[in-house]
């Protein structure tokens, strides 16, 4: 079972839900792995202590042009769909703009003179931590100034591919990084808050999940602030409300200190486990 925890709007409580669910399942001796896919701002490890057991870089292949072999024919420039090759044939100038390169390899295929080779450039890293009870956290982290976190996210998810229960803490938004994460999940938990911004972003996330045909349910965080529009919407659309977490300064305070409510107040561990059991019951594809 792969469960993605996601939200359109940032800061609604994805990490709160992902880390507490992970903790609650871990305490019941479930073999669970948490993958922090928010490679631009990975924070899951703020809440846990663990031993670093694996670390590797994720690379992208960037072309290197051998100017001695290059005939300045411009074919690689034409093949590049990202405008990453700059060429002035008359002046015999050719340059790879590395920031624009997506590593597709088209320029290499284009070149008839064997003038293009590639070099690996690190764009981020994957760290695997051993946490209590034989459970793990895999963290994707993107280097600053890198174009897209997607290859790093994919590498992190791949690292957990043989595990039975996987929680994917998704990046915010509804574009590529989000889609790449939720595409790998069996079920998506959308975390939102009962405000106009929260509702608008929730609708956008749901539109996206409908396109790729993923089952989902909603967690409302900070219930009590804001208004009731979101409840009307869920009712109207017949969307399952999985859990409500009230707005509570203590919960916010625990979170700010990197503490888990499931650890401090046992009823919360129960609530997260019940939510998990409900999802397994309804959507589970294995005997977990």
């Amino acid at each position: 079972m792969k469960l993605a925890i996601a939200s359109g709007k940032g800061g609604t409580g994805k990490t709160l839900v992902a880390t507490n669910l992970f903790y609650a399942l871990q305490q019941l001796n479930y073999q669970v792995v948490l993958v922090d896919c928010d490679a631009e701002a990975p924070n899951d490890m703020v809440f846990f202590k663990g031993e670093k057991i694996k670390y590797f870089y994720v690379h992208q292949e960037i072309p290197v042009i051998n100017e001695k072999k290059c005939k300045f024919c411009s074919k690689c420039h034409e093949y590049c769909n990202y405008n990453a090759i700059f060429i002035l044939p008359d002046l015999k100038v050719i340059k790879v703009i590395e920031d624009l390169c997506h590593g597709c390899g088209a320029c290499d295929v284009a070149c008839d003179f064997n003038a293009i080779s590639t070099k690996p450039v690190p764009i981020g890293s994957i760290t695997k931590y051993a946490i209590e009870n034989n459970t793990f956290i895999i963290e994707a982290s993107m280097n600053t100034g890198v174009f897209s976190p997607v290859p790093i996210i994919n590498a992190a998810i791949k690292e957990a591919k043989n595990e039975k229960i996987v929680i994917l803490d998704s990046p915010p938004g509804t574009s590529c990084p989000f889609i790449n994460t939720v595409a790998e999940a069996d079920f998506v938990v959308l975390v939102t808050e009962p405000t106009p911004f929260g509702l608008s972003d929730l609708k956008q996330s749901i539109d996206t999940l409908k396109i790729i045909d993923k089952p989902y349910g909603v967690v409302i965080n900070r219930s009590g602030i804001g208004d009731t529009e979101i409840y009307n919407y869920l009712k109207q659309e017949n969307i399952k409300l999985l859990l409500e977490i009230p707005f509570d300064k203590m919960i916010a305070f625990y979170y700010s200190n990197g503490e888990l409510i499931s650890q401090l107040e046992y009823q919360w561990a129960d609530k997260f486990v019940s939510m998990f059991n409900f999802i397994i019951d309804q959507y589970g594809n294995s005997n977990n």
Partner: protein
Amino acid sequence: MEIAIISGKGGTGKSSISAAFATLSEKVVLADCDVDATNLYILFNPDVEGEEIYIGSQKAVIDYSKCINCGLCIEYCKFDAIYYSDQKINISSIHCDGCKLCSRICPNKAITMIDNDKSRMYYGSFRNGKMVYGKLAPGEENSGKLVNIVRDKAKKLAKENNINTIIIDGPPGIGCPVISTITGVDYVIIVTEPTLSGLKDLQRTLELTTKFNLNTVVIINKFDLNIKITEKIENFCEKLDIKIIGKLAFDPQVVAAMINCKSIIEWQPASDLSSQIKHIYNNLIYGQ
């Protein structure tokens, strides 16, 4: 003057602060560059005066009447987007990066590229001036290109209407759309919150703004949520010689304002929070 408001972590209060700033000046251009989860139009309900189609990327599509099942495209695709199933070649639109290489190498010209044309840029008038915002279609590339288009339009509108100040509400994270949001602005304001996650993301965001050599200042929002971590943030910024231009207390009225489609300045102009924001803004714009 262009002021970009960003934050590594989502949900720290970027949009609420942008909205407050936008309603403090007589005339302003407001650019919502959080194209992945655009929200400010909900508050300001602008009269849309125009829209432009944004084509961010392309997707590969197979014409099965031409496909001879040779599998060459699978070999060439660096994004693992092409696979064999049900005795035919399939292209996953989620994973396709739009590089066009498959289309170029297909021996039977069975693959064509189609434009992703669902994303839009809108512009118009709102009660404090002009507004521009982008809406990225679900699942599209989280591209900084749409951000650039929004910013270019904002600059144009500022010039045409003789407006001096452009307020830019940025996306979360540290990736491509954030880089596009902050490149070349006069001020970057990082809105952070006193949580360990917030501090960690602030560090990463500062790495980015330092790399781009930008004039960066910090606002600690909801600073009273955890005084100890607020102090940590203050010490951290002092060491790096980064100025903290304001500390704002948690105030549930910010959400109440949002529900009533108003900024906090419009909702409670005389409150402590509003006068504090006014003070910050005046310092920034008029330098005291």
